[in-house]
Each structure stands twice: as structure tokens, then as C-alpha cells.
């Protein structure tokens, strides 16, 4: 209990119990607080990661990438966020309004949900459940639903075709990914993320097929818009 996150949680717990709140309510409040902080943290880190990705991809393609807004263009993603927020939302005629709005929510919510079991440090983890790998597989496949929903709802033949192609791609890589995930489970004899990471020894597991740390990399690897 020496890390900052857990010590702050303990401090809040003692403060709230001094107010006379029940144990269950305190746990609930702390969980809500944890979810909000984790989700916000991820979205803010995402802004920085978009900048890093754009810079690196630009170098691959012999370009400079964003370099105007702020030093080395680091404010560029924030400017993009503001630009996207004040853009007009265009709903195509005849689109299924409910599904059209639901699909981006599903697609982003599943990505956020995956991070509930990703270990940040030995004691800092959203939820250290013992079936974390199964959870990742289960939640990860919901994202496909959001894509087919978006293709169907926008009342556009090309969008539907694109959605079919994307789904074909996503279900094609899913079975090999799950088989690859079996290896760290087999080596660690556990599906909990912390157990898998703890049993991963540096330099030993690199030579082996995907080890514990590689799961996190697999989670990170996304089928982005430029691969489709």
C-alpha cells in the first residue's frame, strides 16, 4: 500500500468512514471515482498517443507530420478535438438514427472497457479478476458489433460493404489472437493479468511465444483506419 493511487484511496476511505458512511457505500463511491479517473486518464493519454502515432507514421512516409501548433506540433491533437467538437453532425437521409448514434458509443466503450483489467503497476490495476484473459476476449469481440451497426445504419451501400470487409478482417484475426493468448495462460497457469505479468521474467519470455507483457501489446495493437 505504498503506491500513490492506493494510498489516496485509503485516505478517502478513512475520511468517508469518519462521515459515518457504510462500508458498502464507500466501496461503491471509490469504484465510481476509479472508473471516472481511469476513463479520463485513458482519453487524455490517447490525445498524446495520437500525436506520437501521427509523428511516427509521418516519418515512415517521409513527411514531417504535425509541426505548426505548439512545439513539435504537440498541441495539434487538442486543436483537432476542439475542431471536431464544433463540427456540424450530418445525419444522412433515411439513416437509422438510433443505431447511427449507438454504434460509435459501442465501438469506443468496448475499447475503454478492455483497460479495466490492464495492469499499470504491481498494485495499480482497475480490477484484478481471475478470468481477465477471457474478459478481454469477450469484450474485445463486441467492437465488431459496433462496426457492422455503423455500416448498416448509415443507409449507404458502400458503408455496408466496408463494414462487411472490416468484420471479415476482424473475425479473421480473432482466432489466431485467442490461440496466441493461450500461451501465456499456459505458462502462468492463470488467467489473471497480475499473475501473468508476475510470472513473466525479463529476457526469458522474449524468446518464447507471446508472454504476459505481450498481451498488453496485443491489446494496444488496433486495426486502425489506415489498415482497412
Amino acid at each position, binding site marked *: 500500500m505504498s503506491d500513490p493511487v492506493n494510498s489516496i484511496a485509503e485516505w478517502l476511505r478513512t475520511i468517508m468512514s469518519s462521515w459515518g458512511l457504510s462500508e458498502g457505500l464507500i*466501496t*461503491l463511491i471509490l*469504484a*465510481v471515482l*476509479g*472508473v*471516472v479517473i*481511469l*476513463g479520463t486518464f485513458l*482519453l487524455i493519454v490517447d490525445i498524446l498517443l495520437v500525436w506520437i502515432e501521427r509523428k511516427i507514421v509521418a516519418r515512415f512516409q517521409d513527411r514531417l507530420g504535425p509541426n505548426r501548433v505548439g512545439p513539435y506540433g504537440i498541441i495539434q491533437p487538442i486543436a483537432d478535438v476542439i475542431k*471536431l*467538437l*464544433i*463540427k*456540424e*453532425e*450530418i*445525419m*444522412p*437521409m*433515411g439513416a437509422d438514427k438510433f443505431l447511427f*448514434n449507438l454504434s*460509435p*458509443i*459501442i*465501438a*469506443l*466503450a*468496448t475499447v*475503454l*472497457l478492455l483497460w*479495466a483489467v490492464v495492469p499499470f503497476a504491481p498494485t495499480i490495476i*482497475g*480490477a*484484478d*479478476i481471475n478470468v481477465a484473459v*477471457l*474478459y478481454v*476476449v469477450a469484450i474485445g*469481440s463486441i467492437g465488431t458489433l459496433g462496426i457492422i451497426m455503423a455500416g*448498416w445504419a448509415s*443507409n*449507404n*451501400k*458502400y458503408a*455496408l460493404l466496408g463494414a*462487411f470487409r472490416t468484420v*471479415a478482417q476482424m*473475425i*479473421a484475426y*480473432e*482466432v489466431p489472437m*485467442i*490461440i496466441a493468448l*493461450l500461451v501465456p*495462460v*499456459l505458462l502462468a*497457469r*492463470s*488467467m489473471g493479468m497480475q499473475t501473468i505479468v508476475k510470472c513473466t521474467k525479463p529476457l526469458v519470455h522474449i524468446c518464447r511465444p507471446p508472454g504476459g507483457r505481450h498481451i498488453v501489446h496485443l491489446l494496444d495493437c488496433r486495426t486502425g483506419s489506415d489498415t482497412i
Partner: protein
Amino acid sequence: MLNDWIFIGIFLLLAPIFPAAALLIPRLIAPRKPNSLKSETYECGIETYGETWVQFKAQYYIFALVFLIFDIEIVFLFPWAVAFDQLPMFAVIEGVLFILILVAGLFYTWRKGVLEWV
């Protein structure tokens, strides 16, 4: 352990709020002046022809069925992998046989031409 599941339950409830907020904020601050030309279905510059929500031949329909079967069977391997060193030799060989049956199924579907992209 129970606390962890409470965390995941609350995450399930709250996670849709983050993208929903990103959709709702433009409702408040962005301009919204739809007209018939702007909200027309955009396909490739030509006017849309016919209905969009037609029955569509998904070329990989059987492929998707095979995927479903493999997906579910592989999930069955996870408990086997967790209890791997406590299992008797019999169960380990059973697991290998299970995988071999799957491989035979894969070769059968391959032979049937399901894996071909039409």
C-alpha cells in the same frame, strides 16, 4: 475479488457515457443546419440508386459460421490451460485430441472450399 467485479460492473455502466458525451457536446455547441442536399446519401457522387437495406450476400457466411465454432471451442481450452499442471496425463492427451479434431475440421472445411474468398 467482489470489489473487482463491482468495479467492472460500474465500468460497464459508465463506459458508454464517455463517447456519448463526445456526441452530445456537439449537439450543444456545433451548428446544425441540415438541408435536403447536405443530408443526401453520399455514395460516389452519383445519385443513390434503389434501396440500400437489401438482402446482401455475405460471401463469407459459412466462413463466419466456422469462425463461431472455432471461437467457442478455443474458449473451452482456457480452463484446460489454467489447470494444465494439475491434470492427469489422460486429460492432457484428451486436450491434444480435442485440438487435433479441430485441425481435422479445419482441413475438412478447407477441402470443401469454404476458406476461398469468392
